[in-house]
């Protein structure tokens, strides 16, 4: 029988904890933090496919998130359809956009991809703010009260929690599968040494494109979930640079290019944000951000590979000690 590794064991405990969380913390505020955590974990894991595994650092993933967020509320606004009808349209639009972005920029290396993604996301954000059809600067609202279950407008947070948890599970499963297939090896080869990978016959451009399209699909889905849950979207909360930055920070904090890194990043960052905001936010001194910024700097300085690496080191130490004993 295969021995249970500490990482697997940790994951199993964590998965059970996630499943039981709404049963233990029935308070809507804690549930909402749980939902926020799941959403952040989905977005960061989706970003991780192209940003972590393929090493193509996008700082404009909000473009996919925003497209996914606007599509459902546009369907509701103009056709009166249930918002979730817009999810496939958001995904389709995101994939098309991914192709448009990827084609020119993936031929280049270095920071060009990062720069291009920032520019395109900003372009879309500013443009959305001037376009009345999508609500311009004021934004779009979802149904205030549900007309039926299909509106996915629930009074409590629990249904959202389990829907989001389901999406996260699917995404992690897909990522896990990729990791072990040839596609995953190609991605890591590109990240490590793109030129070498190309000379060994890896179809670099095609692999990068596929990774970006897959990443865009799930980021768009995360955006749709956000919009349906919040019932509101405007240019800043859909396409704002902070949306993109949050994905990068969470993935990098936990460990980019690892399956559970983004999960760990979200697990630390989201409760930290909620806690500092609860304790210091009302004082309005900006202490929330000073702490937040300080922690990010410290982790980048002392744990540049992300916290997941720390976990690996702890596990390794524990093992060697046991072997020694």
């Amino acid at each position, binding site marked *: 029988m295969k021995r249970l590794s500490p990482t697997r064991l940790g994951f199993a405990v964590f998965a059970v904890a996630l499943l039981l969380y709404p049963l233990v913390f029935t308070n809507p505020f804690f549930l*909402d933090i749980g939902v926020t955590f799941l959403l952040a974990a989905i977005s960061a894991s989706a970003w991780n496919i192209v940003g972590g595994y393929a090493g193509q650092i996008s700082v404009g993933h909000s473009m996919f998130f925003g497209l996914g967020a606007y599509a459902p509320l546009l369907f509701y606004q103009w056709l009166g359809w249930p918002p979730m009808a817009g999810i496939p349209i958001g995904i389709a639009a995101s994939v098309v956009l991914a192709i448009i972005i990827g084609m020119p920029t993936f031929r280049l290396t270095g920071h060009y991809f990062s720069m291009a993604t920032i520019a395109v996301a900003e372009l879309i954000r500013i443009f959305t703010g001037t376009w009345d059809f999508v609500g311009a600067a004021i934004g779009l609202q979802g149904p205030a009260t549900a007309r039926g279950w299909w509106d996915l407008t629930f009074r409590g947070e629990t249904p959202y929690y389990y829907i989001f948890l389901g999406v996260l599970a699917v995404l992690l499963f897909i990522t896990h599968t990729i990791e072990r297939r040839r596609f995953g090896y190609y991605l890591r080869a590109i990240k490590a040494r793109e030129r070498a990978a190309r000379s060994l016959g890896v179809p670099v451009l095609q692999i990068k494109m596929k990774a970006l399209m897959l990443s865009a699909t799930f980021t768009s889905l995360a955006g749709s979930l956000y919009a349906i849950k919040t019932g509101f979207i405007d240019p800043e909360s859909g396409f704002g640079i902070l949306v993109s930055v949050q994905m990068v920070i969470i993935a990098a904090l936990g460990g980019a290019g690892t399956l559970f890194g983004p999960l760990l990043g979200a697990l630390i960052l989201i409760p930290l944000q909620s806690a500092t905001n609860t304790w210091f936010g009302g004082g309005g001194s900006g202490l929330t951000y000073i702490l937040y910024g300080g922690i990010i700097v410290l982790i980048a300085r002392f744990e540049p590979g992300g916290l997941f690496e720390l976990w690996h080191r702890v596990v390794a130490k524990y093992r060697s000690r046991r072997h020694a004993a």
Partner: protein
Amino acid sequence: MDRSWMKFAAAAACLLLFGAHLAEAADSVKIGIIWPLTGNAAAAGQASKAAAEVAADIVNNAHPELGDLPLAKTAGLPNLGGAKLELVFADHQGNPSLAQQLATRLITQDRVNVLMGAYQSSCSFTATAVAERYGIPFMVGESAALNITGRGFKWVFRGTPIASDYARTYMRFFADMKKQGKKIDSIAIVNENTDYGTSVADAIAAEAKNANIPVAIRIPYSASSTDVSAQVLQLKEKRPDVVIFISYTADSILYMKTLKNLDYKPPMIIGDDTGFSDPSFIPAVADIAQGVMNRSAWAIGKPGSVTYKINEMYKAKTGRDLDDTSARNMQSFFALADAINRAGSTDPEKIRIALTQTDLKPEQLMMGYQGVKFDSTGQNILASTYLIQLHGKTYDLVWPERAATAQLQWPMAGWAK
């Protein structure tokens, strides 16, 4: 650094006391307030926070010197056995999803009896929806978007006038001026392009059409612009008789400087509150913006008056004069406190009913409204506004004439000596 550690320690101590705190919450009324205390709108949120704290002080302690202002004479809420108001502030950072989470937290965790907020319309949209779901009254102190009220919500009230009220005020003013022989053949509207500027500019354009006043040009722009000369040159080309600016702080100051630098002075400039009312505006550009008009329902008044005393209290706390935005939030706060007192209970439904029955008279207000009375959508229908004009280093009330304390200057002097 020392101070920061003290703040940190104080916050930690508060946290420890939290448990003990819950026990004594019974004899106080909790008001949860959600504002942007950090982020791009932090200045407005911070100023309003200080205003709410002054308002709570007025309600909680005996202030007989403040005349007819409801709840000022007595300490606490008399109908609730002298219960005090307790404010719980939360910072939504301008993020609508966070505003939603904070509304949930304040209702379910801090167990507030009523909510107030949220400045940006985006955050008001999401936070009010939570209050509606939980059946907790929500007082929208100041948010521009028209459809925050009128979505069929039962629990949402808005104490401040809205864009269409302002637009009608401007049109009445123009009609008055025309009667006096002033030339107003065309106006220009320059608006920042987020929810605030867009809502107000739309309303003005619509009312101008009704009033048959041509809009020579409408210029939406982004408030984070570092240079506004193109806008000023566009105005210079069209030569309108009145320019209405709907701007935030940095941009309103920048406009005044750029108008002077490019030597273009329209006959009259009207600033739509916000940036023109920011305490930073007058020190920065008073010398070159003489005669600029501004809308405001707030006037500091003569020494000895109730408003003057309120301003003194605010000044003692912050070192700055109370601005119109914070004052409107403060007025909404008083209306809310008055309703809680009349309800005689912390039961949300009773407070909601009391809010619908609100009927405050002009002499009971700190603002220049005709009263506070909510229609079936929750909008205050008696809210109105004055027009003020910059003379020297202060704004004087110049319109309507019945309330005016100074003579209207037309055309404006600008930077002329």
